[in-house]
């Protein structure tokens, strides 16, 4: 059976203000796959997501999302940014934020209707935050904010969900509940997900595929294969020690043995 690729990237090159951020990136993501994107700080993970969203124009190469140029498939793509980028004093309720998700489908200038509200409430219910509808967005905890942003992304019924370090600054318990919710989305909606994360140990247990980048693609495949070859350590510029815990594969990255830091 031929698997349809939702994302196709070939020889992608991105230059931002004279600095080459991505160089010769070639990868593809199949429909219904849950893919983790890892790499050290400054590796270009967020830049890659922004290219897929059409927010950054590539300097070279080809990028296709659902067969379209980036930005032209916006009604099929959902995006969840980091929660740390928001102004906590902004006077909007959680429901208002989720309603913004309908902008993907709505025509310019058309006021939000009853159907939009129902769609937003359904997305909130799916994300498990319907009870927070009338609360001010800025008063929510990090984990709650993240779920609201997931609901916003789900509101437009996307087929591809891009998440940029969604668990930054969130405690372990909330992270656990967040990942459980993601799993249920994949199972129930057959969504394609690309998740950028630094929690290598956690996401290796969650994803179907793992991509490790640092300006270029270091490895791309099943998590066990990717972590086995030590290529991840090369991308991070240090050695990788993989600790096995039952059927999970948490691991940590260490600096050079003569070095003093442990990452």
């Amino acid at each position, binding site marked *: 059976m031929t698997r349809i690729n939702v994302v196709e990237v070939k020889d992608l090159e991105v230059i931002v203000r004279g600095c080459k951020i991505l160089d010769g990136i070639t990868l593809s993501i199949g429909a219904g796959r849950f893919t983790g994107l890892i790499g050290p700080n400054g590796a270009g993970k967020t830049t890659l997501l922004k290219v897929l*969203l*059409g*927010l950054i124009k590539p300097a070279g190469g080809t990028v296709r999302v659902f067969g379209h140029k980036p*930005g032209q498939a*916006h*009604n099929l*793509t959902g*995006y969840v*940014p980091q929660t740390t*980028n*928001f*102004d906590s*004093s*902004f*006077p*909007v*309720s959680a429901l*208002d*934020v989720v*309603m*913004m998700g309908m*902008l*993907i489908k*709505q025509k*310019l*200038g058309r*006021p*939000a209707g009853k159907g939009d509200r129902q769609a937003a409430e359904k997305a909130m219910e799916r994300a498990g935050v319907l009870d927070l509808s009338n609360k*001010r967005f800025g008063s929510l905890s990090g984990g709650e904010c993240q779920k609201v942003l997931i609901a*916003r992304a789900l509101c*437009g019924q996307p087929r591809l969900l891009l998440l940029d370090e969604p668990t930054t600054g969130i405690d372990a318990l909330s992270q656990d509940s967040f990942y459980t919710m993601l799993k249920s989305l994949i199972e129930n909606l057959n969504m394609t997900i690309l998740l950028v994360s630094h929690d290598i140990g956690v996401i290796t247990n969650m994803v179907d595929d793992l991509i490790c980048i640092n300006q270029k693609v270091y490895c791309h495949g099943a998590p066990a294969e990717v972590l086995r070859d030590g290529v991840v350590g090369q991308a991070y510029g240090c050695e990788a020690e993989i600790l096995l815990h039952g059927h999970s594969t948490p691991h940590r990255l260490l600096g050079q043995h003569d070095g003093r830091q442990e990452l």
Partner: protein
Amino acid sequence: MLEMISHGFMARAFMAGAIIGTLCAIISVFIVLKKISFIGVGVSHSAFGGVAIGALLGINLTVSVFVFSTLVALLIGWLSRRSGAHEDISIGVVFSSSMALGVVALGLMEGYNIDLFSFLFGSILAVSNNDLWIALTALSLVSLVIFALFKELLAYCFDEQWARVCGINVNRLQDTLLVLIAVTVVVSIKLLGIILVSALLVMHGSIGRTLAEHYLEFLITAILLNCYY
């Protein structure tokens, strides 16, 4: 109070105050939410350049102020996008340049008889019926555009990146907001003056934002405070 309103000029002044207060309050919501509070000061003070150039060229001052302020507002938007810097930096650059241009234009005139103080401080008691109609038209126009683009503008202020992801032409939306600000400033200057307009575009909006939990409360608070003021 009733006796005061029975005088035609006072009734017009109250009506003008209510219309301009509402107009400035509606725009102030987006100025405060987008954190571009300096824009009111920037565009209103830049209008001084429009006054001076209009006087130098001998054209209608309202028309020259409107054209100049709109161009200034669009230039601010273009510069901030082009440089990637925050709007406040572009406002600072354009505002001081416009004022300087105004001073040069006044210097080129052999003698001028325009009342600069009326532009600085306004003259709400001298409001004519024509001014009232212009203010009412501006309020209707601005309200209509804001109502039509409300959810897009709210998303733009809350999360500009999300607005772009949704396929909204954010550059055009930003330009629209800036032109609405310019229209508001131009219409208000004649009645309230450059200094008071910049205050009305920021002060009560900021108070409203502090008091309100929701943007609708914010809008109502800003309108009430502006009209009371």
